């Protein structure tokens, strides 16, 4: 086929006759005339972009992509015990059904007069999350848990004007990197991140917290469960210390834990935040994360959210629901650099999906999934701890994840994980780079998708790997 005559299926007006007709209407003979008048010659690119040869037809691009994606091993052909903020969970079919609907998939910023369904689905997301968190207020979603955590800290800083945030030294390292950048300023950080000592399971050292709390602390930030999986049993005491000093108490949760774990609001949190990936999303190579912040019904908090908020309202017809923008002036769409931080396209489709998940699971489903996760992860920890030279370091109750130390085996986590691949297993996240003091430790994640047989297979494989 002559290249010049290609009609692109996604560019209807690439048909030469149509193009000619349109040019006639405009009064030009060559479409490049439209550029020649607008973009000065010295700014126009004279060369040709050196791009790969195109793959025009649909079947061939599909084959090409399948070949590339086929090079990836995945959690369908392997057992995956990686979590660390992106744990493998059961995704109800309804979640995929709804987020695959073309109307949701391709909608954007329409008002509720035409996009009523989108507004309602997102309003339902905030409403369902509010029940899960036992708090009143959420905005539409953020990019991921790390950005939600970071924005929570900036909210606290605006609320009380203080310049230090206390965070666990063993907090999620991805989130720490995000927060470190987000609290930075020019010429220097305007919110200082100070770490609180933690034990081997990531639990806060209360004495160290007491020594660092001050009237300059805008917030005490903790994770529950901790990055290392532990349940922060002193969560209420930590909150009391924070609030006594006049600081906000921010608790970062994995929302799938909240069917069985107490909502942070009920042990003193003033801001709850997290990543809702666990609520109905696939692993997606990390592309299915989404952040949320929840607070109380208090203008002190409501006015500090940075993202759009959809308010349930009335229409000109009695009894009909409609939706409006709440406090639009908070957002950068409304007031540019005078806004609370910035907003933009984030993760609307995943938020709708999280709503579908929570509605599908219901209160009983959330309790059951939390229970299964706790039972199976405890079973796995129990079995793994019986292996020679392998130590499970939980330090108390844990949810879904736990630390396994391999120091006594004489093997590194990297070596063990390489060997586990031979058993078609993705071993736990190697912690030795982020936390060298923890030695050769890995973070294992066991959820409702791991059957007893899966866990037994892991134990069998680990036994084989560490004893050879």
């Amino acid at each position, binding site marked *: 086929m002559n290249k010049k005559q290609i009609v692109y299926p*996604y*560019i*209807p007006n690439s048909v030469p006759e149509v193009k000619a007709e349109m040019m006639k209407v*405009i009064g030009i003979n060559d*479409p490049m005339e439209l550029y020649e008048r607008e*973009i000065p010659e010295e700014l126009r690119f004279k060369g040709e*972009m050196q*791009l790969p040869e195109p793959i025009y037809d*649909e079947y061939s691009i599909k084959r*090409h992509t399948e070949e*590339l*994606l086929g*090079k*990836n091993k995945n959690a369908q052909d*392997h057992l995956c015990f990686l979590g660390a*903020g*992106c744990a493998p969970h059961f995704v109800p079919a*309804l979640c995929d*059904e*709804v987020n*695959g609907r073309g*109307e949701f*998939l*391709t909608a954007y910023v*329409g008002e509720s*007069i035409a996009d*009523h369904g989108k507004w309602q689905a997102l*309003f339902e997301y905030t*409403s*369902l999350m*509010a029940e899960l968190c*036992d708090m*009143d207020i959420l905005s539409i979603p953020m990019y991921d848990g*790390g950005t939600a955590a970071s924005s929570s800290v900036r909210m606290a800083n605006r609320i009380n004007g203080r310049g230090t945030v206390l965070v666990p030294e063993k907090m999620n390292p991805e989130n720490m990197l*995000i927060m470190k950048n*987000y609290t930075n300023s*020019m010429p220097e950080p305007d919110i200082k991140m100070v770490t609180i000592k933690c034990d081997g399971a990531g639990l806060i050292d209360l004495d160290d917290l007491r020594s660092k709390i001050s009237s300059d602390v805008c917030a005490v930030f903790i994770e529950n469960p901790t990055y290392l999986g532990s*349940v922060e049993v002193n*969560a209420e005491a930590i909150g009391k210390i924070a609030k006594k000093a006049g600081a906000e108490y921010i608790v970062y949760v994995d929302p799938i834990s909240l069917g069985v774990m107490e909502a942070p609001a009920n042990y003193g949190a003033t801001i709850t935040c997290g990543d809702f990936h666990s609520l109905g999303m696939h692993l997606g*190579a990390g*592309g*299915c*994360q989404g952040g949320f912040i929840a607070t109380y*019904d208090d203008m002190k908090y409501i006015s500090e959210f940075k993202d759009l908020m959809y*308010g349930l309202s009335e229409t000109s017809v009695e009894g009909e629901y*409609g939706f409006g923008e709440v406090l639009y002036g908070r957002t*950068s769409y409304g007031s540019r650099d005078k806004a609370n931080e*910035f*907003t933009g396209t984030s993760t*609307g489709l995943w938020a*709708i999906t999280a709503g*579908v998940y929570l*509605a*599908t699971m219901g*209160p009983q489903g959330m309790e059951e999934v939390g*229970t*299964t996760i706790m*039972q199976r992860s405890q*079973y796995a920890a*129990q079995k793994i701890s019986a292996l020679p030279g392998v130590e499970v370091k939980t330090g108390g109750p844990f949810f879904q994840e736990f630390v396994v130390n391999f120091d006594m085996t004489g093997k590194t986590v990297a070596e063990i994980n390489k060997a586990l691949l031979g058993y078609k297993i993705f071993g736990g996240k190697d912690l030795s780079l982020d936390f060298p003091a923890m030695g050769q430790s890995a973070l294992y994640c066991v959820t409702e998708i791991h059957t007893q047989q899966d866990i037994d297979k892991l134990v069998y494989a680990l036994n084989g790997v560490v004893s050879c």
Partner: protein
Amino acid sequence: MSRDRYSRFRKFHQAKWDEEIIFELSVPGERGVLVPKAEKEVAAAVGDGVSALAGLKRKKAPALPEISQMRLNRHYLRLSQETMGTDVNIDISQGTCTMKYSPKVQEHMAARHPGITEVHPLQDPETMQGILEIIYKTEQIMKEISGLDYFSFQPGGGAQAVYTNASIIRAYHQSRGDLKRDEIITTMFSHPCDAATPNTAGFKVITLMPDENGFPPIEAFKAALSERTAGIMITNPEDTGIYNPRIKEYVDAAHAVGALCSYDQANANAFLGIARAHEAGFDMCHFNMHKTFSAPHGCMGPATGAVGYREFLRPFMPVPRVEFDGSRYYLDYNCPQSIGKTRSFLGNFGVVLKSYMWIMQHGAEGLKEAAICSVLNNNYMMQKLKKVPGVVMYYDFGVGKNRLEQVRWSWEKLQQDTGFGTTDVNMRLSDFGIQHYWTSHHPWVVPEPFTLEPCESYSKDDLDEYCGVLAEISRECYEEPEVIKGAPHNGPTHRVKHMEIDDEELIAVTWRQYLKKKGLKK
């Protein structure tokens, strides 16, 4: 033979289900799905599992609704039908957003292939070579498209990409100990994120107003520059569709005082293969992969803002970088001056995958064809819309000047003639099966604005239908005002009493807050 799109209009009615808020569907005891339970042996070994939580065990179950699966499915499909996505309408309305067709083959790969859906982002790089290869290859492509040297796909959207660039500007000056540089200059017709993100990153923001040409005069720009200028962050063409032909002078002047220049290329669909950040002298840029490169908008995400840099800014880029040693792809975290991360893991890989597929289906010629057709479509529409009574084109320089891919129009004359402004017209638009249009970001510099972007996805027939509908609504404004007053008539809902809710008493952003405000008990 196609219908006359200027006289025969769709007798459209959007689905209107009057659907309940999901909590109103709850029937105690109903289940949407059953979830896996631990095996007997597991339970025997560990007990109920949750007793271990002791005082942190949830005391009161979350008040989520209880709904059977068929009803849930019906609920959400009804809501989807009450949503006017690009797939079902001529989505020219959302100017600045490039509502491009998202080819289904891309979605089928990204949403269904386990080589992406079931891949964990922390897998051993050896087990995700395909993903790393696609990221690496897309980086090489973006380098050609922009003329810059390195790219990252970590940011989860356009605004986050611009924020990443503001962070890079800060890191660059901090690394040089040049700490007095605390100002960023932007323009009023650049996207609000070009002002908001540098402010979040700790800069003072100077926003320049346009003159009669539609962009700030070079003299005003030079007057704003000083030894305190850290950078400029601007769009070109701006959200008016006007390309600032003197952009290189602005960039050179900024460089002369030691500032960096960041190019917001949200509007890049106009000039793929025709103009590049490199030739205009920019140090960094960003592209919206979900706009320019066809990935869908997903009710506001997931998205990807690709950020590109010249060589000297590489040390500050987010970690990890995807590298290739000639045989294997790997992740490089060894970047001590890096800003760290702005988004977790590798960003939204699914969006990168879709963009890669779209680019590969077009090649260099096809990308250029997309740009040309987007500008052609816009200029064709201009000829048609200029004739619609009540329409004004601001910054209209008469013969010889055009717009690139979009136009910020005005209904100023219509309002003067009929009293109906842009909001009134907008309310009526969806009655014809067309998404209501994007007016303008705030503040409205152009009075009674509306912004249309007919990208290359739309056929000549689509453009004619759209123009015909606007002409018809204009006619109604002049001749049948009652029709306009009550609009929308055929939508899923009617005009909302409070489109902007600032009164505390009216704020209800969750169902529980709504019940509380209404004095209704849960």
